[in-house]
């Protein structure tokens, strides 16, 4: 226990937990990761102890170890923000008895994780209903695609039964579907807003229509190819994912990344943040009806795209990371040109922001889509959404990676929790990013950019986080003999969408789209309206599929 050093609170917490578990407690401390093996029956008690100590729930991973241990493992990952320890509860479940008690009522953030694990691994959670989250309803029961026994070549025929759906007469409740197909925006996600006199009374979400099983693909790829695969998780914050994956591998294999490579990574991470925030801001102005702002912001975003091309060789998906370092070096010419352009961008940006904040269209944002501090705390919200509701969380400050420990910067915090606050957080983050970029470029140390002479270490577990433009990415890896054995990614929008119903309830329909956009999931409006039956006991949640509608011509 003396390995913990200054971690007084963590020490107390672990004592508390080992008293609760009793004689057979199995606690392994490995650097900043503390692994605790927990019996199924004690799980809920121990999680309530962790909640009392303000541990932040990060993610939950199911790991199929049936080939080597004959068991499934569930990892409940928490983070102690003050002393920066990961606490990982490991619950082992036998293959014959795949049941464990649910903790979704204690921690709302694990609700989606439990549903995902039930879909993909077939573990049952007692004390709750687990409706399908990722697999479509037509998918046969009893086939779990993330288990090791499942082969990628296995083909499943899906049959839609559209005769079950019938259109009914209109009454008081109107359901407005938003998505999944829309000409302006790209991501297939669907929200159903239940309206009563123009006010949203309930929200349903349906997503994961394009779930690609990217975690399964990684099991057959070589580890350096996975960093290119990770970059393709997201089109806007791909580099954050590849940095996060590479850092996890570097942690597991104990690779010392050269200082220069860390600086180049930080520079590109900030360039990506600028790209993402400018894109979001332009889209948001467009939705508010302020199209001049949209055009002006896109004009300066183009300059940032050229900067990214200058540094990395590509406008987006930079493809620069490998475990151990980066592949492309800086030179003095590039740095000079970069500083010239970034100064131009800063001046133009200041002008646009001063002009646009005085516009009447922007007033619409004040006081709409409120996520109060108390609710934000109970949901797993991250990034600008959390910071706009008064939660001071930023991985760059809390758990510094790359070169962020060398630079001082402010983390903008707002307490209003409305759409305006979420916009202001991002506007101020852009200023901070520009300042950070100037510092990084002036102070890049000399040296190599790639670590050499390292070896792959099998059977290691590592968790790393990176602050992406939309919030924090979490990558969990477990290394196999030559390849990855399990790779789990939690993207920021996964955490933020779960809090969206709170923001939308009680809101007028005219602000609903702005509120959905304000968490940056890239989803916009659709014009199709479906009218459903209101039974009196509650809202009937059934929609008419597109096939059924087109059948009638």
């Amino acid at each position, binding site marked *: 226990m003396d390995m913990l050093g200054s971690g007084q609170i963590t020490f107390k917490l672990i004592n508390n937990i080992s008293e609760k578990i009793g004689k057979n407690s199995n606690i392994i401390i490995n650097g900043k990761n503390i692994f605790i093996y927990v019996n199924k029956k004690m799980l809920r008690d121990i999680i309530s102890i962790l909640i009392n100590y303000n541990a932040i729930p990060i993610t939950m991973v199911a790991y199929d170890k049936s080939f080597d241990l004959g068991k499934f493992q569930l990892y409940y990952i928490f983070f102690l923000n003050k002393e920066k320890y990961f606490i990982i509860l490991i619950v082992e479940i036998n293959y014959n008895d795949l049941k464990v008690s649910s903790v979704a009522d204690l921690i709302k953030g694990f609700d989606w994780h439990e549903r995902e694990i039930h879909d993909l691994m077939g573990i049952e959670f007692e004390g709750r209903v687990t409706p399908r989250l990722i697999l479509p309803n037509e998918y046969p029961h009893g086939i779990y695609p993330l288990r090791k026994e499942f082969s990628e070549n296995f083909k499943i025929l899906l049959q839609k039964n559209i005769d079950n759906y019938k259109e009914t007469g209109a009454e008081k409740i109107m359901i407005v579907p938003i998505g999944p197909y829309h000409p302006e925006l790209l991501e297939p996600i669907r929200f159903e807003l239940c309206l009563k006199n123009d006010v949203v009374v309930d929200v349903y979400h349906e997503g994961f229509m394009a779930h690609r099983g990217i975690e399964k693909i990684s099991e057959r790829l070589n580890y*350096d190819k996975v960093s*290119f*695969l990770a970059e393709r998780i997201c089109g806007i914050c791909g580099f954050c994912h590849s940095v996060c994956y590479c850092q996890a591998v570097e942690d597991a294999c104990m690779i010392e990344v050269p200082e220069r490579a860390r600086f180049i990574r930080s520079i590109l991470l900030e360039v990506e943040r600028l790209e993402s925030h400018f894109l979001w801001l332009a889209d948001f102005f467009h939705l508010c009806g302020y199209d001049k702002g949209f055009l002006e912001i896109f004009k300066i975003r183009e300059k940032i795209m050229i900067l990214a*091309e200058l540094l990395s*060789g*590509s406008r987006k*998906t930079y*493809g620069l990371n490998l475990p151990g370092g980066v592949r492309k070096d800086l030179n003095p010419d590039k740095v000079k040109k970069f500083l010239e352009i970034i100064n131009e961008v800063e001046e133009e940006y200041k002008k646009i922001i001063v002009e646009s904040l005085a516009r009447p269209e922007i007033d619409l944002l004040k006081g709409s889509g409120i996520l109060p501090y108390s609710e934000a705390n109970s949901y797993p919200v991250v990034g600008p959404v959390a910071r706009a509701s008064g939660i001071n969380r930023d991985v760059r400050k809390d758990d510094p990676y790359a070169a962020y420990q060398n630079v001082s910067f402010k983390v903008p915090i707002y307490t209003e929790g409305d759409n305006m606050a979420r916009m202001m957080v991002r506007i101020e983050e852009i200023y901070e990013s520009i300042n950070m970029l100037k510092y990084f470029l002036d102070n890049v140390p000399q040296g190599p950019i790639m670590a050499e002479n390292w070896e792959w270490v099998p059977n290691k577990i590592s968790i790393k986080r990176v602050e992406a433009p939309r919030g924090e990415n979490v990558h969990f890896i477990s290394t196999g003999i030559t390849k990855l054995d399990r790779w789990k990614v939690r993207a920021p929008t996964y955490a933020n969408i779960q809090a969206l119903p709170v923001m939308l309830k009680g809101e007028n329909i005219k602000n609903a789209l702005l509120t959905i956009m304000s968490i940056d999931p890239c989803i916009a409006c659709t014009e199709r309206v479906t009218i459903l039956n209101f039974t009196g006991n509650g809202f009937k949640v059934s929609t008419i599929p597109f096939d059924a509608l087109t059948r009638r011509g």
Partner: protein
Amino acid sequence: MFVTEEFRGRPLVDPEKCVGCGSCILVCPAGARRLIQEEDRYILRYFIGQCIFCWRCVEICPEKAISGTTEFFFATDNWEDLFIDIKHKTVKCSYCGKTFVPQKLIINTKNKLPSEFDFDRLDICPDCKKNIGALKISISRGIAYEDRK
């Protein structure tokens, strides 16, 4: 449309320098480069549709046969324009007669090796090499060797 000099566009292979070693195929993260084995020749096939322009092949090529360009516009009416093939004649194993490596690779390897090397063993395929090795071991130990063919 113009791009900066640093832009990573389509990688081009110089067919004269290429020896068909296949390291670009091993390293390609997107699977855009593939090896097609035919009876008397090997084809290294590059498909632009799958290429992510990461230039791992440019970095890794031991003969420096692949060079990067800034081309990025590949719209075409003809599907076959998107494939670039490099064909290599193959060598037959002097023992079993199976095809196993491109001719150029053997010539290239000969040029690099010191002159005292046993050049006869270069055109024997890996399976036959194993068999010959096993035969030599069994003879030295005095064990009867069964012909594995």
